[in-house]
């Protein structure tokens, strides 16, 4: 966490900044529908212009996720995804790509694996950062003791509802600040008006208190939407919209190509 200059996430944002470009951060659920497909998707995403890959560890009861990512998690769990298999998948992904890899893992998965063991093994496997969506700073306790910092870039989340909490959360943020663009759980929002209404002042508050790069996520669904909000952040996270297209493509027998074309269209929208 101390090697801010050396790590892949910070390098990614600083080189994009020099080029005047934005980070495209697709999210996929690990092992949905199987591990080989996930590796193929990661390769496809890199080719389609992704800058950082967010890889979700499926969880039985994901409180922050809407129906699309709940279904993806169910498929991946049914196919046998476990924390051990997840770490192995990261190891294999790391061999094929040098893109920064960020995990999204619910807190109970890490606690049951062993907090320190998970952090150490994930770092060894080649994971760069981690998002723990149900672990606010105040809840970093287990067995009556504080949870130690993980040897990974711990990405912090802020929401438009965070208000007076924003300052504390984003000061000393690492990697990037994950800015929640829509109230509610993950899931596709069709229109810009379905995102949080106060995105501009929200992002202004975040950048007032932190020099860390920002990424907007939750609800981002189309090249048009991305064009409308690309001035607001340094990166854009796209999860449900991508997973929905992967689901449809795989169900229709057209594979991952339509989803990769979608990512390419977001890349184009960000670069225009």
């Amino acid at each position, binding site marked *: 966490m101390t090697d801010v200059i050396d790590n892949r996430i910070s390098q990614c944002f600083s080189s994009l900044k020099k080029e005047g470009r934005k980070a495209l951060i697709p999210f996929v659920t690990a092992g949905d529908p199987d591990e080989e497909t996930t590796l193929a998707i990661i390769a496809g995403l890199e080719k389609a212009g992704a800058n950082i890959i967010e890889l979700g560890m499926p969880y039985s*009861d994901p409180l922050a996720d809407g*129906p699309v990512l709940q279904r993806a998690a169910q498929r991946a769990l049914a196919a046998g995804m476990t924390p051990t298999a997840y770490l192995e998948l990261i190891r294999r992904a790391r061999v094929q790509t040098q893109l920064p890899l960020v995990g999204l893992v619910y807190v109970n998965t890490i606690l049951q694996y062993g907090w320190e063991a998970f952090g150490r093994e994930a770092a060894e496997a080649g994971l760069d950062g981690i998002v723990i969506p149900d672990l606010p700073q105040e809840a970093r306790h287990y067995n009556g003791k504080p949870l130690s910092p993980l040897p990974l870039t711990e990405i912090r989340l802020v929401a438009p509802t965070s208000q007076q909490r924003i300052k504390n959360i984003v000061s000393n943020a690492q990697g990037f600040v994950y800015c929640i663009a829509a109230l509610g759980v993950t899931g596709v929002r069709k229109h810009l008006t379905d995102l949080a209404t106060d995105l501009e002042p929200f992002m202004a508050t975040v950048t007032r208190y932190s020099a860390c790069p920002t990424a907007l996520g939750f609800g981002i669904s189309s090249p048009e939407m991305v064009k409308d909000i690309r001035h607001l952040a340094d990166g854009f996270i796209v999860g449900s919209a991508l997973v929905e297209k992967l689901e449809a493509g795989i169900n229709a027998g057209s594979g991952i190509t339509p989803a990769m074309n979608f990512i390419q269209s977001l890349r184009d929208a960000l670069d225009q």
Partner: protein
Amino acid sequence: MSSKLSSPITEYYGEFGGRYVPETLMNALEKLEEAAVEALADPLFMEDYRYLLVHYAGRETPLYEAENLARHLGGARIFLKREDLNHTGSHKINNVIGQALLAQRMGKKHIIAETGAGQHGVATATICAKMGLSCQVFMGEEDIRRQAVNVSKMKLLGATVTSVTSGTGTLKDATSEAIRSWVARVEDTFYIIGSVVGPHPYPSLVREFQKVIGEETRVQILNREKRLPDVVIACVGGGSNAMGIFHPFLQDTSVELIGVEAAGFGLSTPYHAAAINGGSVGVIHGMLTRLMQDDVGGILPVHSISAGLDYPGIGPEHAHLASTGRVVYEAVTDDEAVKAFRLLSEKEGIIPALESAHALAYAAKLAPTLPQSNIMVVNLSGRGDKDMDTIMNSMKGELTHGKSQSTESKPSDRRHRQPNFPMLFIP
């Protein structure tokens, strides 16, 4: 009533409790905590709460001595705290009155709630109708099927009932979906949680609104018997009726407190809901507590014949009281609960909720081992009207197959049970 702490709202109970939720909810939980601390210390708020408990819910509830039952079992005297006589038929009304008043005080017009058997859903819909608040209740599709009458009641009371199809379609999924929905509407919506579970400050808040059960019980038994009871027994799912009756007795070390979990088909099978007796430490629904989980932290589907106990977690204060040993947690099977359900109906003319029948089943095991001078209080948390279909099905099974559907239980349970439950005549 007196507390050493400045506020009864606490974040952690030993290592358990906390607030493990998405960031979007944090601000709302902080505001709720602030409002709760103020309201509980405000005599006017508490006066409104007590007024509704008396004039709307029908408190205080009787502490009734079940003499026929005690005579039948032999041993300790048995008193029933009659929470089944509350408006809407269970202790759930105590909590929803408090939380609805708090919602009103905070200026929130929309209420959401989760429900399993429908008792909390009906109680919430009831208070929302009275107070003119909009109400949406999340209920698993499986529970909607099992509890049709309560669904109709909620609709009649003006609530929207939202079917939850994710996961196993039961209480855990309804709770997850209520939390997810709250994340999206947190600014104008108040989430009335139904038990001493969830993120801080809910476990403390719900306990504060349920401790009236124990406060009344304590006064009633002292007035009548001039002494404290020897044992207090309550069923535990999430654990609100148990926290409510236990809390005022926590400092009375002579009073043995026993929580009774749902052992379903038996603790040796995967089909139970005993988070203390069969679970381990982890995070569920925003709290660190004990829960039923697999070895990688996935929340397991659980089973109990009683929909209200069919929950994989337990309130964090219970997890703490179990670890300190102040409360002992036992478990009884579906089969034992059904027998206790029928026993109380036949001996006392009181049809208990299947949840409460778990507490009764353990009381029936324990009473014969205690001297007649001992006083046992059982929290009769609800009435059994809602469970008639389940009971009729279970009795049908017994008639056609010569035994009930759920037969697996520990040999020691069988040994205990037989002398206490002679074959009952089935009309």
